């Protein structure tokens, strides 16, 4: 199959899909509660609060308390969706995520809102490019990065039905729809969006549509790009990675995150252990972002179709293709 981006496709902030799906779930299951750190507005939970005033718990600006309270609510038989801006949720409360949620093994859904560099001009304090590395290092914690509203909804449903803790990003940077109808959403499973035997691009979240753009450009030059959407950064789709390493000249990974320990590093671990192959890892590399809006910053770090195409061409050149 080949998924094609629609011409002039409408783009979406996934926070709305998150909030809509959470409210829908809450209508079906009285155990669903939302917990936030004064982030009712930025988590798009105003509608939830209006509909379920007793099931929205706001602990104020206190992220450590936020995650601990979430763990306690789960202990008491509820299914808490703990929502806060991703940098503060994962950075400030990392030890609570480790000890209270993951090590204690309670069913808390940690929702990192506005991740990556979507807060743009607000600067590196408000960017969350480290969250994937931090959370991936913690045992017993699936890490999900949805790519569009459909996948955001699927992630919310999956997380609600899980039995243990989950960390999911909720993208703010607007993206087009990239999920084919009937696509599977399951841990350890990626979605192959385009066929191609030259180079594989493994993308997650906001980078998926950019990988599809790159595939279209390279197709015009006769280069076949295999685009895999990898929504689960943990657990990875190891089989798809090994297949890509075997069947294509190399792998490009791209994520709206630091390259130190995120998707690319995870994929590289699988590749070197099972099927060594050349790779290019795209992301932010050892620096804090300069001032600029999110769109500017993604381009600044080469996190766009051009960056992907260049990396893919580099792998083909290296292979003498």
């Amino acid at each position, binding site marked *: 199959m080949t998924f094609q981006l629609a011409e002039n496709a409408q783009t979406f902030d996934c926070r709305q899909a998150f909030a809509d799906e959470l409210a829908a779930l809450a209508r079906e299951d009285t155990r669903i509660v939302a917990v936030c750190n004064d982030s009712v507005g930025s988590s798009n939970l105003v509608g939830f609060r209006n509909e379920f005033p007793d099931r929205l718990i706001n602990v104020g600006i*206190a992220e*450590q308390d936020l995650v601990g309270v979430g*763990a*306690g609510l789960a*202990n008491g038989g509820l299914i808490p969706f703990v929502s806060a801006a991703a940098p503060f949720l994962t950075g400030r409360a990392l030890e609570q995520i480790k000890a209270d949620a993951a090590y204690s093994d309670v069913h808390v859904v940690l929702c990192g809102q506005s991740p990556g560099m979507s807060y743009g001009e607000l600067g590196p304090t408000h960017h969350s490019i480290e969250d994937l590395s931090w959370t991936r290092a913690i045992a017993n914690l699936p890490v999900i990065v949805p790519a569009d509203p459909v996948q955001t909804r699927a992630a919310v449903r999956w997380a609600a039905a899980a039995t243990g803790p989950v960390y999911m990003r909720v993208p703010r940077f607007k993206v087009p729809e990239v999920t084919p109808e009937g696509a599977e959403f399951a841990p350890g499973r990626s979605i192959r969006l385009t066929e191609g035997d030259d180079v594989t691009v493994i993308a997650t979240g906001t980078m998926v549509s950019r990988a599809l753009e790159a595939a279209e450009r390279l197709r015009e030059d006769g280069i076949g790009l295999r685009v895999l959407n990898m929504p689960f950064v943990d657990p990875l789709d190891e089989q798809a990675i090994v297949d890509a390493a075997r069947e294509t000249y190399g792998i490009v990974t791209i994520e709206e995150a630091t390259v130190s320990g995120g998707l690319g590093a995870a994929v590289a671990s699988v590749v070197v252990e099972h099927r060594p192959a050349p790779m290019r890892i795209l992301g932010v590399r050892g620096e804090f972002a300069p001032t600029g809006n999110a769109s500017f910053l993604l381009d600044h770090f080469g996190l766009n179709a051009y960056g992907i195409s260049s990396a893919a061409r580099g792998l083909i050149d290296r292979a003498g293709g």
Partner: protein
Amino acid sequence: MLVAESSATVAFAKFRGDVADATEEGKSAALRDMARAVRRDIVTMIDRAQLGHIGGDLSVTDILTTLFGAVLDVDPEEPGRPDRDRFILSKGHCAGALYATLARCGFFPREELSTFMAPLSMLNGHPDRKKVPGVETNTGPLGHGFPVGVGCALAAKVQGASWRTVVVLGDGEMQEGSNWEAAMTAPHYELGSLTAVVDRNRLQQGAGTEETKRLEPLADKWRSFGWEVRDVDGHDYAALLQAFEPSTTGAPVAVIANTIKGKGVSFIENRVEWHHKVPNTEQVLAAMEELSR
């Protein structure tokens, strides 16, 4: 996961019944006996493991004994019963005291205590809820148990359930900012079913709390955050029982339990160096002798 031992749970159910029916003096005498047995187990466990936090274990023992012996509605035969009272030891380094208490109640066989901190033991240096029944959340890093306890109490409120939540904190632990976040949340949500107990032994690892980072006026701090405060002798069973009565105002209850670190063993009492020092053979014998009087 360890499982209950029925002979011990039956004996403990009888103990609970006897305590409930006893006079005030009778209750105190029974709890004193239980506490003495728990303290002996603690010393034996630390002697065997050559590890442990003996000072804080001994200061918190009377608090734990009173809670499990006469207050908490928990069932060792059904430790996950949905409407059970929640007990959280936020000062998780005193796991030894908790394990000795839980074993005494029958949550798991007392023989298991001899594995304390041994390789692959269920009894880790800090409590693990996946291994030890009666443990609600994995504590150890300070400032974690209290917010989780606030969540447990909120869960009761959201669902209209009647369980109580009791969290025991170390006094040095009150230097953690997360505890003050939780201390603001509970009164805001009027969590009258929540009791926070501070084991106020006035010592932390390296020095006195007031030398390290001043906590006083501690009761005023809690009061100003909106808590109903009860300032009691943490080794006086009758006073503790009264302090553990439900809230009278609808506000959450803070019990400042004034204790002696190392309580019960004269040469350990109130000495900062006994935070996690391990007694030698002679000291173990002397301690056991004092705890058997």
